[in-house]
């Protein structure tokens, strides 16, 4: 019964039409609320706006996936007679799988470098982490807990110290309120804040700066930490054994191959501000005494160790030019490529076959008439 329902062509039509509605609605919604909110409310969740009973994009695409899969068993026993249709549906199954795989495993981050500067870290635009280091040196061990995975009253314990943190307040977008007259006893804030003031979430998620108030156990004097995403430095906390640890809130970091920006160049079309080309020359450290220089520019990304680096933007208004790269890692990257080829081939084969059969039928009819 369920099998028949899942494989029915009526379900296909309903899903396609509902997806059409979602696409139109979600596109119009973007005008006032931005693309990220539209993704969050229409295309990524199971239900619209995450709570209504109306199916969201993820649920519809999931149903379509099951519909495609089950219809194989019900409708295509004689599939070899319609190879185009088979290929089309195989391609679409791959496409949906690829999309799902990318969604759960893909990483999108940024690398921002001034000329001469190097790094082995990319940062997330949307995810944040509470981190702890035991020393403030250039190369150090870092422990982190991801903000999107924690909730109020959750406990965070770092292995390298005896400090335990309990979340007392978590704001997705906030600013800090400075202490009015004097320090709040037992509260440490790197920016000198006494409390967090929640702000309305911005439609561009990377503009949201979170804040967190943490109860601290296992430290001398410090009872509470107030960390804010805009803090320039981490909070300094003395443990009960007298050793120091540093705890802060920052954009989530990903380790990438070490790269140094040697030079950034940008050109405009003559007499205009229309960008013609912008490119970065970076030096890569590939191991002991193994270095290589490469150019990253528009439409010519660098692929290295599973990461892809794209020339994203720049700031040439300061004395030292800054270049920004989009860094992505997606092991299922090529699945949609294959899916596109297979589906398109299948569609072409199918429609040619159908048209050919129709024409032959008409010719036969004419001949018999």
């Amino acid at each position, binding site marked *: 019964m369920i099998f028949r329902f899942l494989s029915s062509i009526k379900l296909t039509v309903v899903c*396609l039409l509902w997806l059409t509605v979602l696409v139109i609605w979600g596109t*119009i919604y*973007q005008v006032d609320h931005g693309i990220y909110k539209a993704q969050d409310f229409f295309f990524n969740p199971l239900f619209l706006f995450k709570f209504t009973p109306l199916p969201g994009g993820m649920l519809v695409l999931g149903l379509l996936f099951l519909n495609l899969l089950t219809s194989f068993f019900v409708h295509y026993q004689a599939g070899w007679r319609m190879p185009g249709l088979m290929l089309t549906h195989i391609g679409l199954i791959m496409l949906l799988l690829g999309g799902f795989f990318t969604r759960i495993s893909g990483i999108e981050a940024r690398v921002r470098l001034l000329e001469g500067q190097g790094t082995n870290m990319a940062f997330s635009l949307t995810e944040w982490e509470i981190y702890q280091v035991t020393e403030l040196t250039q190369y150090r061990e870092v422990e982190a807990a991801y903000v999107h995975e924690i909730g109020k009253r959750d406990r965070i314990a770092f292995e390298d110290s005896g400090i335990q943190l309990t979340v007392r307040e978590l704001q997705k977008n906030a600013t800090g309120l400075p202490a009015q007259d004097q320090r709040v006893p037992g509260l440490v804030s790197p920016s000198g804040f006494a409390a967090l003031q929640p702000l309305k979430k911005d439609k561009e998620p990377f503009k949201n700066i979170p804040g967190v108030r943490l109860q601290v156990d296992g430290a001398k004097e410090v009872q509470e930490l107030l960390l804010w995403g805009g803090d320039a430095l981490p909070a300094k906390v003395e443990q009960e054994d007298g050793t120091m640890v540093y705890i802060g809130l920052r954009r989530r970091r990903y380790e990438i191959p070490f790269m140094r920006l040697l030079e950034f160049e940008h050109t*405009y079309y003559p007499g*205009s501000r229309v*960008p013609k080309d912008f490119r970065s020359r970076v030096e890569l450290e590939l191991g002991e005494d193994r270095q290589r220089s490469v150019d990253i520019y528009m439409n010519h990304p660098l692929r290295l160790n599973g990461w892809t680096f794209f020339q994203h933007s720049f700031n040439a208004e300061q004395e030292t030019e800054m270049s920004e790269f989009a860094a992505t890692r997606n092991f299922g990257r090529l699945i949609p490529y294959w899916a596109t080829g297979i589906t*398109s081939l299948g569609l072409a084969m199918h429609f040619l076959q159908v048209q050919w059969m129709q024409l032959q039928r008409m010719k036969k009819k004419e001949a018999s008439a």
Partner: protein
Amino acid sequence: MKPALSVLILILGFVGCSRGPDSETAIDSSPETPPPASALKSVAELPVLHGGGRVMPLDTFSRLVLLQISGRRSYGEESALEWMMQVLMYPDRGLDDVIFLVEHPDVLSDMNVPITQEVEGKAKPSTRRFSYNHLRPGLGELQLLAGRARNIPEDQRGLVEKEAVRLFENIMLYDQFRQTFAFTQSVPGIEIKTPEVREALELTDESGPIRFLHLREHTPQLIHLVEDATDSESLTEAQTEAFAVARLVRQAESHWAELPLPLLPEAPHGTDHFLAPYDALTKTMQDQDLVNAGRRSLELFEAWRAGNWQEVETLAGDITAFTRARMDHLRETALTGFEARFNRANYFGRAKVFYLFAFFLALGSVVSGSDLWRKMAWVPLAFGLLLHVVGLGWRIYLTARPPVTNLYGTFLFVSLVCVLLAILVEVLVKNGLGLFVGSLIAVMFIFLAERYIATGDTMGKVVAVLASNFWLSTHVLAVTTGYAGVWIAGVFGHIWLIFKLLGKDKDTLKLVQLIMEGLLGFGLTFAFLGTMLGGVWADQSWGRFWGWDPKENGALLIVLWTAAVYHARVGGLIKEKGMAMGAVAGCITVMVAWLGVNLLSVGLHSYGFTDTMLNLFVGYIAVELAFMAVMGVLLYLKESVFLSGSKDPLVSEPPKPAL
């Protein structure tokens, strides 16, 4: 009158002479003879740097300027180039030309200018275009209005404010073009009296009227005269006069610097900066080649005014050669001659005329069933197609890019694909319908392309991310081919519904249905391929395959809708009529994806949408929905049980099948 005072009075008079029509000027004294085509051709090819970053022939440049000011590509019988040459060479002759497009009449009310204008003795209340002289009394008010509007963020300005800014900028632009060669003229009424200043300026009794450029070139000598002056009280008469002349030069210079005709490259293979003739002569005196080229432009001006056309051609050729030599790293500089020829050839306009002929012949064939008309329709269609292909070929050659880089290009490309598909249909079924549909769509889309031209340069430079990528090229070509397939299938959907209403026989309807389904399948295949190739391009360019961008969604919409219609048909949820209705609605989804998403002004693909296009888009959707509703009702009535068995009231006599 004291010599210093007379010069000072001239300062305002001289600078103002080129600004207003009521000042007595020396600039318009020469007789004009109409330029021959060869002279026009030679100046048409002059390379000029456009603000969009492209070196283009003066011919294209003039079209863009006139389009910006007037919304038209010619002024009456005059081509844009002829109009521009008149503005440059005889700045005071076109002041009564009705060229300034005013899209919002409230601006005129705010300027205290009548909203009707007399042209050749007749008031033209409905005109939207006005002359410089008509608007001139309100320029002060307009400047205030525009100044206030500029203080408001652009996206918060109202229609009147936007129009005030636009009109003021256009009038200023026009005014600046008029002054391009004003510096070459004699300073009206100037008289240098003191012998020292006359000597410094190398003036003799035989010297004719004093030209501004002469004063400009002798400024160092004037400065030398006043070097030892300590305070204004102790100035000699000569020093006072020298100061006044120097001040005149300085004031006029600030007026003439960086005028908007960037004709001469400042440095060879260097900064890609172009200078107007005045700047070329005065900015970098040590670059003798540049100064000589500046002088050439000056001589061109004089030769034009003297009607010495042979010399005009020589000088224009010299300037073109100079620019090409300096800018040999910019491909388009060498192609200005080709582009000017391309403009003159007007391939698409002529193709449209041929398509129109083909349309009427094919219509006649479909209505009458005449095979002769059908065969005759092939001839203009073939000519139209030839011109269409050649025109697109020229565009590809000139831009060194695939034919689809902006909306204008998509109209031309989609119409070409539609014509080719229609020809394929005609070859297969030979009933005139293919010719009819192909020519109809070509005329419509070329008409739309012509409307789009008003938005600016149709061969403009594209930003870095769109500049060069195999996947981008294949994406746009595939997706627009998909648009063409779904669109033309929709047109056959219209035909099916009309034929059904007219009571055409079953075989005819079956044939149209077969064509429609085949084209819809073609459209679905390419729309899907194009949409996914867009994802591949996005993944190659910035690392994400799909982002639910409005244009991606638009393309996806076509795929989803067409797939839904197909599945509904296969599943028996709809029949032939539903399929035809679905194909017609497919036309709407194409228009939404193609034009509609640009209305949203979000995302990466929101290029060029004008108010005219908006009106056309909304109007189209309304007409299409009305068509579907009316056809639905009429077909329902026709098929309803109340009419079954009786004679069809909608068609008194079923027409003779033409197919």
